């Protein structure tokens, strides 16, 4: 679940997330979040809220682009999504984004599967945020409903 390397002392009070089925990567890089926030849980929660409000729109745009085979848009969106995930420490999502980018540039056709995997990772992030930042209300918007 967590990357065992350079795992910092958890002083944020954030409960470690559960492992992601199938992928094997951690959901969030808590060491990174600790490092980038300076141990400020409030900032992490603010960041989580920002993340949860930003990502659904990007996922929706990506889904539309994949559906219409608009690969340039899909590529730019995946890149943005990857940057967003990396900035939040959502290592699971960013790893899927990397594979998606590679697939888009390399012509791999299992894009829908990867997108599903990306959604699953996002749900895990939502779950994690919901557990650790009760003031943040995870919402998947239209995608959550689609995914459900």
């Amino acid at each position: 679940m967590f990357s065992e390397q350079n795992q910092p002392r958890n002083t944020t009070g954030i409960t470690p997330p559960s492992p992601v089925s199938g992928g094997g990567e951690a959901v969030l890089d808590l060491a990174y979040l600790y490092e980038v926030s300076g141990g400020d849980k409030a900032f992490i929660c603010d960041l989580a809220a920002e993340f949860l409000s930003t990502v659904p729109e990007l996922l929706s745009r990506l889904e539309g682009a994949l559906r219409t085979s608009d690969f340039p848009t899909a590529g730019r969106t995946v890149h943005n999504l990857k940057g967003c995930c990396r900035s939040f420490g959502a290592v699971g999502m960013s790893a899927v984004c990397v594979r998606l980018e590679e697939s888009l540039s390399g012509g791999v056709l299992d894009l829908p599967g990867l997108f599903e995997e990306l959604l699953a990772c996002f749900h895990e992030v939502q779950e994690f945020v919901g557990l650790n930042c009760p003031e943040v209300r995870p919402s998947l918007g239209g995608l959550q409903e689609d995914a459900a």
Partner: protein
Amino acid sequence: MRVLVVDDSRVSARVLEHAIRELGHEVEVCYSGPEAWSLFERERFPVVVTDWMMPDLDGPELCRRIRGLGDGDFTYIIMCTAKDEKSDRLAATEAGADDYLSKPLDRLELASRFLVAERLLGMQVTLAERNRQLVEANRVLESQKLELDAMLRRLESTSLIAEVSRNRFSQLFEGLPVACFTIDSHAVIFEWNSRAEIMFGVRSFEAVGRPLRSVLGSSLLTAQRMRNVKNVLKGKVFHDQSWDDGNRYFLVSALPLYGLESTITGGILTVVDVTRQQRAEEQIARQLRELNVAHEELRVLNQRLAALATTDALTGIPNHRALQDRLSEMIHAADRGGGLGLAMVDVDHFKLFNDEFGHQAGDEVLKAVASTLRDKLRRNDFVARYGGEEFCILFKDVDEAKAKELSERLRRAIAQLPCEHRAITASFGVASFGPKTRNAAMLLRAADEALYAAKEQGRNRVVAYSEMNKADAA
């Protein structure tokens, strides 16, 4: 530092903003390229941290625009992106980025980049200050260069003037019609013109560099003259001093030559050969002396001639001509109030004496009578040989009576003259200046008439003109 964060991802922007604030900097966040460019145009940020991929205006384009401003303000640009390829780093650098950060953000790397940014910006400030100082120094140098150029032009102009002056001096020096030479402060010849070559028979290359005395010689440049030359080197001028070497004669003038700061650096001497003039003057002086001697001789001769003209050659007393002059003067004097008596004297029987004893004896009688009359006269009276054996006496400031008295004394003196042959006597006719005898002719005639009367009355006597008239009346 004020930092501009540009990222279309609010998550990434928040992370960056938070981390940069933690480093102690002020942060302004823009969520798009155009928004960032618009802000940057209004306000320069020393540090920009920008995402790469953004719609409308991406990170590299923003870099290029910032670099394209070229207004001298340096901005440290960090490209922060999820692009991982090394080629991406190169592309970012080519676009104008100074550094590159990968997402996810590493705060230590960010801190490291900001340290670099601070150092570079500090250097940039230092460089800007240095540049300002260089610009100022350059301005000063430009100003000094202008002054130097002006000085150079003045110097060139001065050099030209100096060259022209040197040429003029050289032409003047060489063209002077007199010998001219300059000496240094040790009286060593420095310049020697062509007239000096001719005058002293010494060529310029032989004279220059030698002591003045060794060239002119000690017979010309004596010790005293050498002192005069040395005084010139102390500022004492002399003009037209006469120098000679026993053979030739010169007029020498000298004045000091001044160098910078009015110090005497030497002297200049001019020499005019006046030997010819000197010889001519000597000849003229000699001729003048001879002329004076001749003139004196002539004067004596003239004096003698004049004396001869008014002196009776036989008796040595004034002659008739001298009598006329003196009589005229004394009548004028008498006319102004003084008296005048006149006596005509005739040696008695002189013709018989001559016939009997010879002319030589007669001449001796005349000489003796003349001497007696001259010696017995008063100081202001006058006697002259009137002609033959007649004499005429002028008595100054007397009336007729006094004239007669004086005549009587003279008559007696003559009568007492010793003579081996026979006694010598003389008759006197006296007259005086008066209304009827107011001029020479009248006076002489009156005296002559009185003399005639004296002869008539028996000779050896004195007859006054007035008495003669009384006698006639009686």
